[in-house]
């Protein structure tokens, strides 16, 4: 069990006083970010990333990943008490969480949400601890063709699994690739897509794009929906906690099922939001009380929260082992790794043991700390939403602007951020998914590089992508995912015809 030894070493790093302090600070900031509309996991981490350059990489990732855990916890608070999902992955939590709060069961709903989040994350961390070294070891054998195949699989599954129009997913993704290509071409040194502008020579930094797409657009959307906060009281006492835990024991099956759905959706880059919806849907379909869902069933809180946290956490597995993030926030963290001078991918497990295992150990600790903090401090966090919206909106705008500026010390980036804010607002309203854009933007350069390197090896022959069993099967899986909507339609038509 070399993993256990490595993990204990990781704990010794995560338990250093500085790292512990950063952990608590990260969780508190994260919950705050999760509670506030307009600041989410992805852009919260993006804004703080430039401030972490003075820290050791392991301390920096502990701080930023804890912000992520905090944001995952925080999204549930506003969903249940205010019927406002602080994060997209807590939309499904409002379905039963808010009705529970209206019936005076806010404490139970919150406890159920936090506990399920904790369990979901814990299962995902176990998976990361024991599965990721295997995946990383396997991926060490990858050449450029295999890496391109894995990227292809990741992007193809996005298109195949998209809940809305696959063409919109594709457009969003291609836009991300094109934005990634702007600037200096790393292979030939030529300038691409700058059209003579010196400001564009730096290319589009993904942090600026993320802050605009997720932060500014969120403020615009919130103001359009005319936010009025009318919240329920949320105070959790020990008796409510114990009562909820006893009740949750009856729903063990839902917890396990939701955690597995979450892990799966997090590792394949579907992300926390679809995971929470899917888990909610499955729980409702399989429940004997399916009709009562939406009126305040505790299962309706447990299912989405477990899955969202499991997905959000396990999204770090492909990021650490393959360098392919499973969610927008994981994509931002991956960008952080590159900026700290670490090479994401399987070599991380060989060369940066302290970093990897320090991070994994901090996930265990961070989630325990997170659970304690949210249970104790719910009323204070909920009180933030009583601050009038114009004040919050102005402060968030300023924070976003500073975040965008500090990436490159360029005021032009603030203008870009606003442009992407408007684009994000329009795209979101038209059901264009934003996650593929961000992932393509972060991975664009590496996808293109591995593609070009592979073709260079084969002297321009595409047969390199079917040259051995491994790369062939990954590519085949990719094409299967890509045409999945088409195939399943054909399948159901065929079986309908057979049934008729």
């Amino acid at each position: 069990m070399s993993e256990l030894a490595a993990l204990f070493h990781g704990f010794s790093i995560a338990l250093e006083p500085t790292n512990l302090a950063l952990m608590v600070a990260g969780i508190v900031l994260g919950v705050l970010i999760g509670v506030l509309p307009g600041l989410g996991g992805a852009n919260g981490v993006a804004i703080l990333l430039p401030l972490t350059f003075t820290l050791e990489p392991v301390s920096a990732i502990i701080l930023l990943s804890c912000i992520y855990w905090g944001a995952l916890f925080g999204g549930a608070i506003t969903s249940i008490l205010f019927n406002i999902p602080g994060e997209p992955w807590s939309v499904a939590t409002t379905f039963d969480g808010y009705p529970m709060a209206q019936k005076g069961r806010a404490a139970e709903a919150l406890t159920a949400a936090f506990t399920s989040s904790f369990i979901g994350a814990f299962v995902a961390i176990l998976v990361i601890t024991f599965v990721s070294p295997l995946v990383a070891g396997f991926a060490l054998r990858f050449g450029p063709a295999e890496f391109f195949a894995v990227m292809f699989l990741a992007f193809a599954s996005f298109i195949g699994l998209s809940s809305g129009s696959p063409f919109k997913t594709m457009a969003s993704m291609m836009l991300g690739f094109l934005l990634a290509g702007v600037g200096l071409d790393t292979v030939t040194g030529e300038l691409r897509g700058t059209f003579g502008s010196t400001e564009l020579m730096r290319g589009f930094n993904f942090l600026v794009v993320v802050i605009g797409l997720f932060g500014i657009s969120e403020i615009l959307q919130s103001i359009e929906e005319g936010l009025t906060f009318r919240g329920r009281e949320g105070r959790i006492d020990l008796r409510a906690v114990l009562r909820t835990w006893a009740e949750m024991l009856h729903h063990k099956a839902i917890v396990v099922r939701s955690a597995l759905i979450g892990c799966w959706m997090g590792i394949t880059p579907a992300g926390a939001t679809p995971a929470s919806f899917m888990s909610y849907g499955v729980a409702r379909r399989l429940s004997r009380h399916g009709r009562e869902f939406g009126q305040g069933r505790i299962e309706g809180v447990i299912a989405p929260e477990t899955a969202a946290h499991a997905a959000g956490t396990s999204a770090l597995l492909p990021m650490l082992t393959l360098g392919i993030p499973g969610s927008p926030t994981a994509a931002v963290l991956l960008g952080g790794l590159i900026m700290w001078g670490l090479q994401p991918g399987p070599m991380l497990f060989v060369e940066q043991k302290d970093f990897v295992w320090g991070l994994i150990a901090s996930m265990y600790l961070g989630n325990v700390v997170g659970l304690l903090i949210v249970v104790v401090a719910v009323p204070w966090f909920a009180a933030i939403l009583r601050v009038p919206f114009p004040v919050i909106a102005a402060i968030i705008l300023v924070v976003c602007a500073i975040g965008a500026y500090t990436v490159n010390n360029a005021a032009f980036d603030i203008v870009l951020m606003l442009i992407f804010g408007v684009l994000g607002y329009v795209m979101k309203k038209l059901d264009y998914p934003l996650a593929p854009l961000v992932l393509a933007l972060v991975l664009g350069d590496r996808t293109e590089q591995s593609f070009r390197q592979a073709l260079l090896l084969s002297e321009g022959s595409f047969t390199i992508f079917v040259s051995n069993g491994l790369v062939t099967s990954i590519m085949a899986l990719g094409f299967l995912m890509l045409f999945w909507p088409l195939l399943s339609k054909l399948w159901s038509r065929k079986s309908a015809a057979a049934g008729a």
Partner: protein
Amino acid sequence: MPQFAGGGSGIGQTTVEVVLALLFVAVGGLAVSEGLRLGNGWGFDGPQAGYFPFWIGLLLIFASGVTLVQALRRRGEGRLFVTWPRLFLVFRVLAPAAVYGAAIFFVGIYAASAGLVLWFMRGIGGFPLRQAVPVAAALVTVTFLVFEIWFLVPLPKGPLEHALGF
């Protein structure tokens, strides 16, 4: 002007769908032309720099073309993208934000941020100045301490800060 089922008018969903899809087609076209300029064939060091933008651009044109056709087919439904009163609300936030972005170039981020908070609280929230001024001052002070002093990250400054010796 399309009418909303629940009353009120605004910008139609189809209009915005079509405009955005056309914009994406245009971006794809730019990428294709840039790809052709750089060369989309085989160079001595593998595929040329224009190879990727060329094909990605074509895929963007294809995907947006399909979206465009789908949107035009649904144009009879008369769904609204946003009603005028709601769009006005968005502009009440977006316009000051744009001014804020421009102002940073001239007066630096501190003065611009203070102005933004004052405008939002006074103009949108209707708060009296005796509440708005302390909030703006607190935000600027905290920002200054965190960035310039603790993290040593210099933010854009204007004539006011220069006059104060920073």
